[in-house]
Each structure stands twice: as structure tokens, then as C-alpha cells.
């Protein structure tokens, strides 16, 4: 089975073709891209077409398209999902939604022995986080203040391994709670589309128009 995967939950853009022979053709951003001004609209389609061309897989040969549905940047997610949905529609394919935190967790601890704590910057002083022990979801994705996340980790008596742009931004608060975070330049901080593809390999496909972002936060506006 050949899969195209993409993720736009952070400021970085990621795309990958996992070919049916197991070979991966990946556009994986540098960690520095997490701190740049987001440019999903200009970067995503060139990245997608780039990995498709490198893989030699034609659109009609794809079996499914996988997409990171967040949580993360609202605008980034909408660009990623609008793109993935239209690609699926145009190719008559199902879409496989994958948690962006789940994909980030895949790169934190390849040995799977530590608790993985993926942390994505949610802006406005908050983070999106989740906790995984191997394949098991300890904490489903949630939004929290960094101090609240640190407190939750402390109370649970965990010493997790964290990564993600949120863990870089709030390193001080999180490390004080015993959370271990790799250096800023570590590749573990980016959401890789290869991991989106791997998680999607067993995920059920959905009609493209039914796949929506996992926002985890309501719009700010109040009814009058």
C-alpha cells in the first residue's frame, strides 16, 4: 500500500510518501522551521508534489492519504486539511486522520520505554499535549497552561521525555517538573510526515469531507 502523508500543525510543513515497498520519501523540516513565520500556503503543495515526484508514485497509484489533524495552528491545520481533502476527493480516495501529537510522540522515544509527552505550542500562553506509553494513550490530547501541564506530570509521578515546539518554548517550566527535553536543535521536535504515514497504516479511512481539525479550543468570539 502506498500512502501520502502530511502535517501542518506547527509552523513547519511536513510531507511524505510511504511507498508500497516500504521505502519512504520524506520532506522533513529542520527544527529551526518551528520558529519561523508559518508559510503553509506557499510550502505545502511544493513539498507534496516534491515527495510524489521523488517516489515515482502516480496519484492514481496511491491507496490513501493521511493527514495530521492537530491539535496545533488553526490556520495551518485548515490549509493542511483543505489540501488533503481536495487531493483525496480528486483521486477518489479515503482520508486517514492522525493525531499530530501522536505523530510527534513517535519521534520522541523510538525504544518505547519512556513515557512520551508531545507538546505543541498552542499560542496565547498555552500548550497542546498528550502522553503515550508505547502504543497506549495515557492522556488524550488536551490544552493547558505550561504550569498546569507541569503540575499534572508532577502529580502523576511521571518522568516523561518531551518534544515539540511547545516544549522548547516552555522548557524552563517543564524541566523544573522533571520533564526531560532534548536540545532545541534536535529533530525530535518536528512532526514528521513519515510518522503520520506509519500511524495511518492501520487507521481506518474516512470520507474526506468528514475529516476536520482537532481544534481543542473554541473560537474567542462571544455571542452578543
Amino acid at each position, binding site marked *: 500500500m502506498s500512502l501520502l502523508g502530511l502535517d501542518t500543525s506547527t509552523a513547519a510543513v511536513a510531507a511524505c510518501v510511504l511507498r508500497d515497498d516500504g521505502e519512504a520519501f520524506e520532506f522533513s523540516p529542520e527544527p529551526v522551521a518551528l520558529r519561523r513565520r508559518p*508559510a*503553509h*500556503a*506557499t*510550502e*505545502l*503543495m*511544493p513539498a507534496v*508534489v516534491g515527495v510524489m515526484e521523488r517516489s515515482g508514485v502516480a*496519484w492514481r497509484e496511491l491507496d490513501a492519504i493521511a493527514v495530521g489533524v492537530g491539535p496545533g495552528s*488553526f*490556520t495551518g491545520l*485548515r*490549509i493542511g*486539511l*483543505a*489540501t*488533503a*481533502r*481536495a*487531493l483525496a*476527493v*480528486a*483521486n477518489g480516495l479515503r482520508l486517514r486522520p492522525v493525531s499530530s501529537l501522536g505523530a510527534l510522540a513517535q519521534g520522541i522515544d523510538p525504544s518505547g520505554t519512556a513515557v512520551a509527552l508531545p507538546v505543541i505550542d498552542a499560542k496565547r500562553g498555552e500548550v497542546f499535549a498528550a502522553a503515550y506509553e508505547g502504543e497506549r494513550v495515557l492522556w488524550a490530547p488536551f490544552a493547558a497552561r505550561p504550569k498546569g501541564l507541569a503540575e499534572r506530570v508532577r502529580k502523576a509521578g511521571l518522568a516523561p521525555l518531551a518534544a515539540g515546539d511547545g516544549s522548547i518554548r516552555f522548557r524552563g517550566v517543564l524541566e523544573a517538573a522533571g520533564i526531560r527535553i532534548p536540545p532545541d536543535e534536535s529533530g525530535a521536535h518536528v512532526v514528521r510526515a513519515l510518522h503520520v504515514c506509519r500511524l495511518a497504516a492501520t487507521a481506518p479511512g474516512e470520507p*474526506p*469531507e468528514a475529516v*476536520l*481539525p482537532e*481544534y481543542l479550543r473554541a*473560537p*474567542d*468570539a*462571544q*455571542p*452578543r
Partner: protein
Amino acid sequence: MAYGPGTRDGVILAVETSCDDTCAAVVTAGGEIRSNVIASQGLLHSRYGGVVPEIASRHHLELVDAVTADALEAAGTGLEEIDTVAVTRGPGLIGALLVGLSSAKALAAVRRLPLVPVDHLHGHVVASTLGPEPIEPPYLALVASGGHTFLARVDVPESYTVVGQTLDDAAGEAFDKGARLLGLGYPGGPAIDRLAEKGDPEVFDFPRSAPGELDFSFSGLKTALLYAIRDLGEGEADRRRPDLAASYQRAIVDALVSRTRAALEREGLRRLAIGGGVAANSELRAAVQALGVPVWVPPLELCTDNAAMIGGAARFLRPLPYPDYLSLDAAARIS
């Protein structure tokens, strides 16, 4: 009729998500509208008294694929029969624009179709070139909506020259703000239009600001309405609401029509097209008929935001070949 570099045989799929309406349409190069689907979020935003960008963007994503599928189905066609994809690139709400742009780019890229990025305002300007009796340049276009109010000279349909514009609020915005002061719902235009039918437009003398030669200004008008309501007192203002609405509407329409008359004279133009949501206003529609020139007033679904007009404008523009548009970005403002 043959214009410009964009004219070619073919079928255009157009997508428009610049504000709060999710729109898709199928238009032919000859100007036939095969379908024009509009999913309005108006009622949703009425609870907030205006368009909330984040809510609009979320709903665009929910609706865009279904609206596109509806447009193809209503046109009796499928993606495989589309020759060109057109999409609004701006101006508008950036998060909203990006949903339509991302979708359109992906749809086009899979089949390596050309893509035409369209200026939303160009769509309004050339809306009357669609349909069985298209307007032919040269003409003057009056575009008045919730986000824009301007007069444009059109000599060739692939471009337009703005000759006058609002310096502050758009005419539709003036309707919305007036409606709010009168305790009416959003969008304000239709609500004021309905209430004005029962009122006397001569009772209150609201200002007709006339800045520059052909420009508009509506911000002082809502202040005048605010003062009038305050001076009347709550009970009396409530009783006089139809008169207030009629007089307020008359002031907006007078400003639009007098500038349009002046622009026709100064530019030496003999044809007029009106567009934008405010072109749905019944008093404006009647008033422009008295200008002494032939007037093209598109049906309502071509006045408010729609994708048919985006496809209509795309007919006159040079498409970007694949893969030149892959890195195309939306633009909240277009200079």
C-alpha cells in the same frame, strides 16, 4: 465576443471563500453559468453582530468540499471535465481565503490543470458580463458591499481602474452599523430595506458626505443616526424606527447615486453595472434606473459574494500553468 488572453474554450470550476459565504460555481469560457452554489453563514454570524474570522474559516473548511461537489453536480459535470480552476486570492479574510485557495490548488494540481488566481473585486466588477445579455465595455461599475464600496472604469474586461472609493466604512458596513443602532439583525441591509418600506425617507435629514471628487464617506452617517436616536429618546426613537430606517437608507443611496452620476459624466461613460451585496437594495436598484443610461443589475445571487463572478473574471485572465501556482499564497489586501 472575444477578449484578452484568458479567453479559451473550456469549462471553469471557480471557488470563492473570501468572507462568510462558501461558494463554488461552474462557468464556461463563453459566459454561461452552469451552476452557482452559495452556502451562506449569515445566520451563524448574526449572533455575533458581524463576521467572526475564526468561525468563518472553520465553516469554510466544513463546507468547501460539499459545496464544490454540489456545483459540479448541478452543472451536470465532474472534475474530469473541468479545464481550468479559478479561485479568489484576495482581498478578504486571510484565514477564510486560505481554505478555498488550498482546496483549489490541490484540485488543480492532481490533474495538472491551469489555475487562475482572481481578485475578488474584479469578480464583482465583471459580474454583469455573465449571462445571456452581457454588458460590453466601456462601462462604469458601482460595487457596494459589506467590505468594499468603489466606482471603477472598465475599458477591457481583464482589468479595471478605480475612479472613486470609500475613505472609511463600506456602504454595506453603514447598513450593518445602522441596523445595529436600530436594534435590527445582521446583515443590516435587508433588515433596513424591509423596515424602510414602512417609513418616510424625508423625515430625518442625515448628512451626505461628499469627500474628494468621486469618493465616499459613511462613517459620519452612523454617528448622525446615533445622535438622532439619542435626541428622540428611547420610546420615541422606537416608534419612529421606520422613518429613521427610511431616511438613513435614503442618505446612503443618495450618496451612491450622486457619485455614480458624477462618475458617468466625468468619465464620459454611457453604461452602468452595479454589483456587491448592497446592489440587492430595492431603493438603490430603483434609483440607478433614473440615471439616464442603460443599467445592468445582476440577479441577487451574482450581487452578493459568489463563485460564478470569480469564474467570470477568470475567463479574461491568463491562467498560471501547472506547477507555477503550487506556492501561490492568499492576500488579505491586493494593491
